[in-house]
């Protein structure tokens, strides 16, 4: 394959989208010297966009109701087709909001201290005897511990069967899967998020997703359920130190011909892990033993 045939080759002149005329952007900036270029760059600061991280997190314009803004450690709106990632302390509360009804939060969780321990979707469905994650559902690792638990859910439309999209899927469905293009794949974005923590494709197990539901029919058909509408949220408790990877991409089974995904709000704030005094700790025998395993690990590590 020659360079010109490679999928990463630079497009020839005239093949770029022309909706935004380059000449117009050019005319907005005076950058003919270092001083003018510096002034031009600095003049761009302080603007607000529809999707951006908010720093400090306590300045978030979308602080969740009932949450002390001073306790926020992460506040961000993820763009459609965007991704984000963060390392969170044990006990942190993590909330996803779907303001438009079209977000789809694909999620991977790792033990931040030993990333070979990671979300195991099979155990997450099998151990609780339940295929559809909702309130109090544990997100389990393959090591018999609770990485996180669903502590709030006003959507009820989620999926742990279909994972996220691959390049092959999006190329077939939309004709394009480039992470910088109009229909990025979830795996392509997970790969970039993982790479920023020294991880690679070996480290990407099956993921799950929030806000776009799928249900299994009696013959096994995976039936599209879709969104519960605008304004729903999901809240998690980090029961271990977590590396969180999030890709906000169209669900694999989304039946719409276009690539439709809305912005995703992410907030996290300081809190305590689920403790022995809470009803959730002993809600089921499986969950109880999972919490015992989790505390056993954390106590030994001094967490």
């Amino acid at each position, binding site marked *: 394959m020659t360079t010109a045939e490679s999928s990463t080759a630079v497009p020839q002149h005239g093949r770029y989208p022309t909706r935004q005329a380059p000449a117009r952007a050019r005319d907005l900036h005076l950058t003919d010297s270092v001083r003018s270029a510096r002034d031009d760059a600095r003049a761009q600061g302080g603007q607000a966009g529809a999707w951006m991280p908010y720093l400090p997190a306590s300045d978030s314009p979308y602080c969740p109701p009932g949450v002390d803004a001073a306790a926020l450690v992460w506040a961000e709106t993820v763009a459609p087709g965007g991704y984000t990632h963060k390392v969170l302390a044990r006990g942190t509360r993590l909330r996803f909001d779907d303001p438009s009804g079209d977000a789809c939060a694909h999620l991977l969780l790792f033990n931040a201290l030993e990333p070979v321990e990671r979300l195991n979707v099979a155990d997450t469905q*099998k151990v609780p005897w339940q295929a559809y994650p909702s309130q109090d559902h544990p997100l389990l690792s393959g090591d018999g511990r609770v990485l996180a638990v669903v502590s709030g859910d006003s959507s009820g439309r989620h999926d742990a069967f279909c994972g996220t999209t691959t390049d092959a899927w999006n190329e077939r469905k939309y004709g394009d899967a480039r992470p910088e293009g109009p229909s990025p794949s979830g795996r392509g974005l997970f790969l970039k998020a993982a790479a920023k923590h020294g991880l690679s494709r070996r480290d990407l197990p099956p993921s799950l997703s929030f806000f776009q539901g799928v249900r*299994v029919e009696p013959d096994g058909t995976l039936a599209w359920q879709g969104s519960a509408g605008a304004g729903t949220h999901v809240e998690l408790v980090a029961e271990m130190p977590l590396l969180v990877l999030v890709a906000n991409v169209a669900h694999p*089974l989304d039946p719409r011909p276009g690539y439709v995904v809305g912005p995703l709000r992410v907030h996290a704030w300081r809190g305590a892990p689920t403790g022995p005094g809470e009803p959730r700790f002993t809600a089921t025998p499986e969950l109880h033993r999972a919490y015992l*395993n989790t505390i056993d690990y954390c106590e030994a590590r001094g967490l």
Partner: protein
Amino acid sequence: MASTRTETRPVNYPTAAGGTVASTVPVGAVYAEGSPLDWGASLVEGAVVLDETVAPNAPWSAVVRTGHVLTIVDVGGNQSADCLLYDADDPEERYSVPDTLAWQGNAYVRTGTVLRSSEGRPLMTVVANEVDRQDTIGGACGKESNTLRYGHHVMFQHGCRENFLAEAGRRGLGVRDIVSNLNWFMNVPVEADGALGIVDGMSAPGRRVAVRAETDVLVMVSNCPQMNNPCNDFNPTPLRMIVVEPAPVAGDSRSAHAARTAKEGA
């Protein structure tokens, strides 16, 4: 049913070398003497390139070349064969449950199911199947997850995750390469309210499944040693693995040789 031994009196166990050894190790159960066994035969005609037995509780692996067909025989009936697949040339590309399910739009594995990789590409195709449906939701058992499911008193028992790790190590792979798997001959229904679990199997002695390699595939199997649920009918039995190069059909350009030649020429 296996029980937790509390005494430390040595018991005579069969050894791999063919003798016996007196041991206090609480090893897992082997199949009950006198269990009906049906060793079957390949589901597909062709030249046999491999014919091996997987002992109860043991791991196994082999590379199945493009176009060759692997028949797995459930010799004792309702014996889960936990199974992972890897592109033999690039094991970082491996079997993916969600890609397999989303691509076919169905939660169960049957004849015609294309077993896809983490990149969405075909690794193998189910070309014949003698069980109503095969499972790929239930994952593998392991020492750690067994503590959640049954209690900490079973932590000492063997599990498929242990088998996968041991076999992966022999192939230069490790814990990062173990993902959610297939379970040939295991039955995991999903009910209307999302209730899901391993229930009594639909297989029987001699039932088979056959999968054709769409590229050179490393197949890794754990002959499930689980002693606490019906995934092996509480009676671990052997598996038979038969790989054949299908007999070329006149005028069929998709013969194994043609497929391999095409791949090598790409």
